[in-house]
């Protein structure tokens, strides 16, 4: 009986391990509005606007940010401060947005620009993947 319990727990453990996504992105509250967080170890602040539980705009403020603000949604109103997130978590969130085909094209593009500004191997591996994956 004890062996059976041990085996069952081992199988359950493995199943949980497989089902947990690797580098899963931290979640954001479901309320609409702007959220912001500081990227750990970088002078970068990410702003994300969410509507109907979906990200619609991303703004990245960094010392060498070259993105213009003309004609783009302004950061205003109440902003939920999420404190500090690691670079890996920030990259994971942006990657999730780029990969989610149901989201708007603009927010996915903004996420790509955000990834390009990160100094993350994961982000640039993704660029490599997009640009050099075998064309079908």
């Amino acid at each position, binding site marked *: 009986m004890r062996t059976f319990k041990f085996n069952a727990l081992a199988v359950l453990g493995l199943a949980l391990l497989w089902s947990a996504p690797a580098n899963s992105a931290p979640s954001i509250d479901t309320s609409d509005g702007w959220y912001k967080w500081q990227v750990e170890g970088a002078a970068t602040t990410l702003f994300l606007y969410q509507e109907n539980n979906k990200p619609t705009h991303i703004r990245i403020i960094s010392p060498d940010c070259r993105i213009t603000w003309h004609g783009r949604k302004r950061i205003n109103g109440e902003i939920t401060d999420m404190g500090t997130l690691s670079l890996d978590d920030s990259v994971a969130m942006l990657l999730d947005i780029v990969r989610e085909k149901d989201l708007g094209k603009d927010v996915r593009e903004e996420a790509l620009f955000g990834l390009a500004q990160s*100094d993350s191997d994961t982000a640039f591996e993704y660029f490599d993947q997009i640009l050099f994956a075998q064309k079908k």
Partner: protein
Amino acid sequence: MNTTTRLALGAALLLLATGSLAQTDTTDDAESLRMTALEALITAPPARAMPIVDKVLSGNHSAKLKERALFILSQMETPESQSRLLAFANDSQGELQTEAIRMIGIGGDKDALASLGEIYRGGNADVRDAVLEAYLIADDTAAVFNIAANTQDEEEFSEAVTMLGAMGANAELRELRNRAGLSESLIEALAISGDPESINELVDIYRNAETDEIRNSALEGLMIAGHDEGLLELYRGAGSAADKRQILQYLVMMDSEAVWDLIDNAFEGTQ
């Protein structure tokens, strides 16, 4: 063909059509994502972006994607990126080469711009045009002046001088006039330059012209510059009916209000 066969064939064709549409959408999406990813690299640290851009340029990608990669290179402002751009301007062919040359103009790197002189001398007409465009983009009037001043080829001179006119390089045009004398292309360039002093001067060039070519070029220049006052002045001072007719034709071509003044005055007997 019976109904069942026709229905089967119709269904098969529909399936094929929707299948190929879906494939096209996927292909377009993938290419669009590739393009955006490449454009995003403009904000990336050059050390991160450079190997990827390099790989795009040497890989089997569309010309459009490669042209965009050249633009990213031009914006990197590092010695490596400029030297890579220059290598493409030197060694590649066709659209990619001319695009690399233009991108050197957009980047505005002085050393890279200076290297274009040699590419110009060894290039075909497309390459030479692209180099002139690069100089125009970079506003490098000295480089275009050098081409105009040192060529023996009339067509090359004409193209360089026209470019100087488009760049509003009045000092360089005057210098060329002092060195080589007046020519049709130089007169046209003076008109294109939009410099009021040069345009006013066209009136005197017409009056003092020693050949019909120069005289006609001056009239054309006045028309290009839209200087109907100058043409009116020449009309009033014209010595022959033939000259008056020719100047009037230019005023008509310009759709100038001055023509109506002349007609009104003619009726009143004052002209």
